[in-house]
């Protein structure tokens, strides 16, 4: 019953999206842009002018009406703007990191650039494990690239936020020392690499399992992905002494499982109980086919009944039983419509009766005249 209700809700959501997709897409784009700019300004608000709420909001509004890639570029420029206030050397390093991301990923897949933004946002919401699970379910193995880029950006922002003062003081020692320290801190961050390994393995496991032809492949894939996340991070904690919050890991992975279930409901609703295994052959091959029917529940249609006042002098309507059954839509109740007397036929019948009675009257009058019955009475 609950599943039926969920499928009805899914159908209703699809209808709503079909009707208002233009506005919903823009709203999602606005929220994404606002979230990304908020994350950047909240953590790196070194340039006062850029980090004001009005600028954040204005930028988000502008990016809403531009292609999604504009949000990614605006985020990159915002980060560079804030880092510029700390040091020119760090700006150069950050720009080089962004350039590498552009050369090796964005150049070939600009449409999926938005996934790079999703990763830091998920970290901000304390649910980073949801992204590899979601991309493993809906994307392809190449999705590991935006996951890696997004994770690097998040840890880079975190590092700049925590050590801005130290980096500024290092500026006095020389730009080389500062840049070296920045690069070292970013790329020698054990926690970041453990998270990257966990996410990459999780995404690949989820993708591989959900492509398998086993029953409940998506559910198994989601569970396996969450398990990989927990195991890899726990191993990282034990082997490399990386401080991790187990409560956060478990909570984040529960969120990943829930999101995975929602995605399964939306994109892969099948009924395994009605699955069929078929085998056939042609001249060249034997075919072993597994067919699983999709579940589709149409949302109930609202019908409006109009109850009118009964009008007087209304002619009695003759109801065609067959037609009424056909209208009710239940094919079992359908019976062939029986022949019934229609109003036109009734009229003709009444006219015939009148004709007969008139003839009878004329006949009786003529007989009375002939037999002189009227005079006898007088």
């Amino acid at each position, binding site marked *: 019953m609950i599943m039926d209700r969920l499928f009805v809700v899914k159908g209703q959501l699809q209808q709503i999206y079909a009707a208002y997709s233009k506005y919903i897409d823009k709203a999602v784009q606005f929220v994404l842009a606002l979230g990304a700019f908020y994350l950047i300004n909240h953590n790196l608000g070194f340039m006062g002018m850029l980090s004001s709420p009005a600028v954040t909001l204005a930028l988000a509004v502008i990016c809403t009406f531009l292609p999604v890639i504009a949000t990614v570029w605006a985020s990159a420029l915002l980060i560079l703007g804030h880092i510029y206030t700390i040091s020119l050397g760090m700006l150069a*390093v950050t720009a080089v990191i962004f350039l590498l991301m552009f050369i090796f990923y964005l150049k070939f897949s600009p449409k999926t650039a938005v996934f790079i933004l999703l990763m830091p946002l998920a970290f901000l919401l304390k649910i980073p494990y949801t992204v590899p699970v979601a991309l493993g379910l809906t994307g392809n193995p190449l999705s590991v690239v935006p996951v890696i880029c997004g994770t690097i950006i998040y840890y880079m922002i975190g590092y700049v936020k925590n050590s801005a003062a130290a980096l500024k003081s290092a500026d006095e020692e020389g730009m080389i020392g500062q840049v070296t320290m920045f690069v070292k801190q970013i*790329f020698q961050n054990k926690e970041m690499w453990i998270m990257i390994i966990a996410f990459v393995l999780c995404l690949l496991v989820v993708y591989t399992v959900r492509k398998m032809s086993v029953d409940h492949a998506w559910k198994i894939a989601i569970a396996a992905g969450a398990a990989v996340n927990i195991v890899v991070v726990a191993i990282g904690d034990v082997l490399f002494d990386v401080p991790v919050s187990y409560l956060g890991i478990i909570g984040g992975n529960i969120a990943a499982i829930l999101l995975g279930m929602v995605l399964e409901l939306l994109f892969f609703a099948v009924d395994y109980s009605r699955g069929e295994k078929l085998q056939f052959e042609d001249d060249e091959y034997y075919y072993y086919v597994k067919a699983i029917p999709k579940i589709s529940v149409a949302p109930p249609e609202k019908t409006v009944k109009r109850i009118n006042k009964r009008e007087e002098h209304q002619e009695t309507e003759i109801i065609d039983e067959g037609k009424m059954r056909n209208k009710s839509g239940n094919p079992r109740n359908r019976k062939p419509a029986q022949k019934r007397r229609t109003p036109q036929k009734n009229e003709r019948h009444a006219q015939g009766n009148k004709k007969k009675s008139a003839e009878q009257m004329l006949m009786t009058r003529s007989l009375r005249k002939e037999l002189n019955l009227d005079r006898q009475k007088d």
Partner: protein
Amino acid sequence: MLDEKKIKLMTRMASYEANQGKEDLAVSAYYRKDYTSLHTLFSFFWGTLGYVCLIGLLVLGSFDFLMEHLTMGMFFTLGTIAVLGYFVIIVIYVVAANRFYNKKHIEARKRIKKFNYNITRLLKIYEKENR
């Protein structure tokens, strides 16, 4: 009287022209070989730039170590590894870019052909209307 078939066709075409069509038209302005070669050449330069950036970051990351332990022998060994790495990465990058742009051109041409076919259909509908 509105012609539903014509409206559907025109909507589909307008939607394509406004979104994917712009890029496809730019791509299909070239012959496939020219387009692929040109972008592969650009990719070679981009790949080289990317590799230089990557090596730069690696050098900066291990700057202290290199300053302490760098010898002439180590310098030549690292240099050889860097050059070999460059050839490996650039070959992979250029081959991947070549295949990517080749496929991109083929797909763009397919969509353009479909668009042209739709234009012909639309013209036929107009001809029918004028008769």
